[in-house]
């Protein structure tokens, strides 16, 4: 015992001595920063995952629709291409829900409640789209209107939900992407068939993949 730090005097010696080391001011700040980052990485939805999954789903799904619609006389896509489109859409929704739920495990309270409500909003929203389109089809809407309706309403819903998510997690990237999807979805109907699928694939899916890239670059920069 050659040195005596007066700071140690106030805290009683305890059995778990190694953890009782008192950090100096600089390492204390480092600890605070590191824990904040650890919590953010472990809990907040990873925008790269969400953008990536939705980007691939839309790019591939809409390109398939476009390529089959181009070769038919009335510009409606083949049935099997819709199967691929909806399978990709369902996969993207499933990944989103699982990702958000897995991240919120272990937390109870306001954050997890908003996370769960946000997750359910997707399912409820798509049921609404399904009902509207079924109604329009039953009312005698022609195939072009039905096709444009499905893709633009889905776009509108996903975009608005991203806007809501951006507001919820105060994420500008998510918010900007949501706005982009809403506008692309709306504008794609102006292109008519089959051009609307191409607009959705490139501007919609491509835009989301650019969003994934932008958010990856930001993560990488923050991590340094």
């Amino acid at each position, binding site marked *: 015992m050659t040195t005596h730090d007066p700071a140690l005097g*106030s805290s009683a010696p305890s059995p778990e001595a190694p953890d009782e080391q008192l950090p100096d001011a600089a390492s204390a*700040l480092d600890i605070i920063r590191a*824990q904040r980052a650890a*919590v953010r990485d472990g809990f907040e939805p990873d925008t790269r995952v969400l953008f990536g999954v939705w980007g691939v789903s839309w790019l591939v799904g809409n390109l398939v629709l476009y390529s089959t619609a181009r070769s038919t006389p009335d510009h409606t896509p083949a049935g099997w291409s819709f199967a691929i489109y909806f399978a990709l859409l369902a996969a993207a929704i499933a990944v989103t829900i699982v990702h958000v739920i897995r991240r919120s495990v272990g937390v109870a309270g*306001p954050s997890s409640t908003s996370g769960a409500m946000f997750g359910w909003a997707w399912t409820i929203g798509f049921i609404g789209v399904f009902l509207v389109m079924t109604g329009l089809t039953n009312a005698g809407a022609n195939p072009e209107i039905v096709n444009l309706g499905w893709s633009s309403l889905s776009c509108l819903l996903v975009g608005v939900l991203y806007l809501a998510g951006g507001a919820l997690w105060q994420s500008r990237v998510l918010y900007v992407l949501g706005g982009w999807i809403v506008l692309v979805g709306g504008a794609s109907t102006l292109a008519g068939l089959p051009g609307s699928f191409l607009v959705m694939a490139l501007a919609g899916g491509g835009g989301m993949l650019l969003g994934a890239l932008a958010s990856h670059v930001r993560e990488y920069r923050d991590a340094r």
Partner: protein
Amino acid sequence: MTEAELDPVIHSQARLRVVATLATFPAGDRIAFTKLQQLLDMTPGNLSTHLRKLEEAGYVDVVKSFQGRTPVTHLSLTSRGRLAFEEYAAAVTKLLGGSS
């Protein structure tokens, strides 16, 4: 202001990590013991020891409940604990800035 004047309850490597982690969540959120342990990479015994000290100081609220038949412990910072952490963080920043 010197390092000796910093809140002794928080001014320890392990407890600072615990408090900083809990403070990152918005007020009202409760974190499961196992999730906290995973975030901190601490042994259950070690984490319990530090949580007890924080609870005695009135900084951490411990709620035990059951999820089905499994007992779960949820932890959150009390408003007093959150205030103490904010004051600690401000004091440390001031110390580094050289002004006292």
